[in-house]
Structures are given as structure tokens and as C-alpha cells.
């Protein structure tokens, strides 16, 4: 089975005198409709799952995805934001899902992910309704050294390479936390972002930000602070603290090219449902 994710970028221009949505874009790479002055910029990622068409070897032609999203979803966003802004967020995403769910047969609409900013997104997975997932990115900077005292210096250098430098080295870690839960009918929110921030601050930032992880984080004592081990520690710190909904995934980027996902039991790579990213 294959998955295809197409990101559709668009703007809802709400300022007085803004161009009509049907006007041709000024830069379709940057968004169609394009952002014009004061407005709202979104990306909607559509994930389809299924088998390949035997003639084209496509799961679905991405032009069909763009066209349908532009035809059905964007006018609905426009209407909602202008006339029913209280339905923005979870209700809007759920209704958009219903508009699109049968749009690309035989491919199945597996997930819709709405990015509210480059750092925060809300996603709906077909098999998890009415639950939604909310992801938020945080950053912390820390140093570490990969070294196992049980190995010889030579073995350490061989295993860890540059990361074995006795003086340590550092990274800007980016932590993406995903919480799954049923949106509160009163607020439309999966969880209170301020509450999540406070938990993050207490459990992760205060412990790890601008620290030397080998010596200053007791939870990592006796462990080599690889991305795998740091992500596991963060999962164990956060998991019991998320009480509205549940922690779905912790993704820790050591660099943009190296990251680790941490999932709970019965979730993620061993089960659960949905699509990647």
C-alpha cells in the first residue's frame, strides 16, 4: 500500500478591497489563492492511501487533488472564516474532511492536516474520528558527548566518531509534540496550548535547555545521550502529564537530517492508524 501526501497552499484574504478568491494567483508556488496584504495563510496536507493505478502508476494525479481542494475546500474555508469564525479549527477541519472524503476513489482519504503556522498543526485521521491530533514544535539548545566508559578510547572514537569529542558539542533540538484527543465542544480545542507550553517548560525546557545533557539531566544519568535516549526520556516525562487527550507522538530532531519518533504502546508504528506527517 502506498501513501501520497499533497500539500495545498492557499490564502484567505479578508482585508477590505482584497482580490476575489477566483482571481489568478500572483505566485501559485506560494499559494493559490495567493496572500494579498492582510490575510490568513494556510497549508492543507491531503494524505491518500491505496494501490497504484496500473496504467499511470500513480496513486492519484496530484492535479486532481489540487483541483478538488480548490473547488470544494477553499471556498468553504473562505465562507467559514468570514461568516462563522467560531467554527474555525476542529469543526472546520471535520467538515472539510466530510466534503473531501469520497473525492478521489478508489484512493482513501486517510488524513487531513491543517497547518495553522509552521510550528502548529491540527490533523484528522479517518479511523480516529472524532479524535484529532494537535502538534506543536518547540526548540531547546543543549550540548552532549557520546561516550561509553565501558569501551576503550579507541572503540569510543570508532563507534561515535566526531560525537565522541571529549569537550562535547551541541545542537538546536527541535521537539514536536503530538497530542490526540477529542476537541472540547465548547472551545473546539484538543487541548489548551498554554497548558501544553507550561508542561513543556517544566518537564523539558527547564531540564534540558542550555544544559550539558551528560551531566545536568538526572534522567539521562548512566545513559548515552543519543537522540534515541533523549526522545525516550522526553516521552516518559511528558506522557503522564498529558491528561486531556493523550500523548500520541514525540518527535525529536537532533538536526533536520536525523530525528527519532517515540510512540506509546498500541500506537504508532505497531498499530493505531493514520498517515505519516
Amino acid at each position, binding site marked *: 500500500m502506498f501513501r501520497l501526501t499533497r500539500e495545498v497552499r492557499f490564502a484567505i484574504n479578508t482585508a477590505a478591497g482584497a482580490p476575489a478568491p477566483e482571481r489568478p494567483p500572483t505566485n501559485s508556488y506560494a499559494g493559490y489563492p495567493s496572500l494579498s496584504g492582510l490575510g490568513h495563510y494556510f497549508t492543507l496536507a491531503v494524505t491518500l492511501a491505496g494501490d497504484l493505478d496500473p496504467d499511470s502508476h500513480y496513486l492519484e494525479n496530484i492535479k486532481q487533488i489540487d483541483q478538488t481542494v480548490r473547488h470544494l475546500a477553499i471556498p468553504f474555508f473562505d465562507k467559514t472564516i468570514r461568516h462563522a469564525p467560531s467554527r474555525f479549527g476542529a469543526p472546520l477541519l471535520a467538515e472539510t474532511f466530510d466534503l473531501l472524503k469520497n473525492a478521489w476513489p478508489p484512493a482513501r482519504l486517510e488524513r487531513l492536516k491543517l497547518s495553522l503556522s509552521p510550528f502548529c498543526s491540527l490533523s484528522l485521521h479517518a479511523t480516529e474520528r472524532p479524535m484529532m491530533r494537535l502538534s506543536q514544535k518547540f526548540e531547546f539548545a543543549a550540548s552532549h558527548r557520546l561516550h561509553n566508559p565501558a569501551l576503550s578510547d579507541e572503540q569510543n572514537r570508532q563507534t561515535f566518531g566526531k560525537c565522541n569529542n571529549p569537550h562535547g558539542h551541541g545542537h538546536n533540538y527541535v521537539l514536536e509534540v503530538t497530542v490526540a484527543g477529542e476537541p472540547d465542544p465548547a472551545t473546539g480545542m484538543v487541548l489548551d496550548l498554554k497548558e501544553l507550553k507550561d508542561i513543556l517548560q517544566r518537564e523539558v525546557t527547564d531540564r534540558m535547555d542550555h544544559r550539558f545533557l551528560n551531566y545536568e539531566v538526572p534522567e539521562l544519568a548512566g545513559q548515552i545521550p543519543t537522540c534515541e535516549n533523549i526522545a525516550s526520556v522526553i*516521552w516518559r516525562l511528558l506522557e503522564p502529564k498529558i491528561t486531556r487527550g493523550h500523548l500520541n507522538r514525540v518527535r525529536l530532531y537532533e538536526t533536520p537530517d536525523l530525528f*527519532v519518533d517515540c510512540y506509546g504502546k498500541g500506537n504508532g508504528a505497531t498499530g*493505531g492508524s493514520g498517515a*505519516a506527517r
Partner: protein
Amino acid sequence: MKLLLWRRYRFSASHRLHSAQLSDEANQRVYGKCNNPYGHGHNYFVEVGVSGPVDPATGMIANLVDLDAFVEREVIEPFDHKYLNEEVAEFRENVPTTEIVCMEIFNRLRNFPKARLERVRVEETERNSFEYAGPPEGVKHD
């Protein structure tokens, strides 16, 4: 708790979407610009996700030195700066849509000896990405 280690790689290559089973007109209709007879190219990003126990001696699921060398040999070296349709044998038979490219990369990496290959994700552009997790019995969910 379950861990997945992801590593991101890149290669640049050209391809042409053209199916020998379709007429020229049908090819043009199905593939549009991607059917250009001279081909066109992309900067592809490949994300390789592997799982396995964390080795207590190293703190790692897999040493990136091993993973990088394996991916370099199996995928990057044969694909980077190549015309996929002509220079990679598998794409002489199968149209190199990114779905097929993703599956081919998965198949080339599935025997990585140091950890279990879970998923391969390929970005053809910033806006299109594809994921393959092996045949149905091996399908992974996120």
C-alpha cells in the same frame, strides 16, 4: 514505547513519465508536463525510518555510519545525478513515478542488516511526498 529512527538523505535526478502501454496522446493526457520527451528533474529527499532495540552500549538503534554507508551504496550512488529512466534498470520497465521510486528505494533498503526497515518516505517536491511501508502484511501506521 516504540522508537523509530529517521535519517534524511537527498539526491537529484531527472525522469520522464511515459508509459509504453499508452498512446502518445494518452501519455500526454495522463502525465501532462511530466511527459516532456526530454525529461525533467527534481531534488528528491528520502527519509528512511528504521526500528529495533536500542543497543545499551551505544544508545543507538543503528549506527548512522552503517546506515549512511548502506543508503549511499544502494540508493544515492546509483540515483544521484542520473536519468532514472535510462540509468536505473528497474525504471526501464516501470514508469518512475515517485510512488514507484519510493517502492524501489524501500526494496533496495529492506535488507539493511543492522535494524528493521519500517518505512521510506520520498519528497519529490516540497508539496508532494510519498510513503511506502512494504507489501500489505508489513503496512505501518503512524
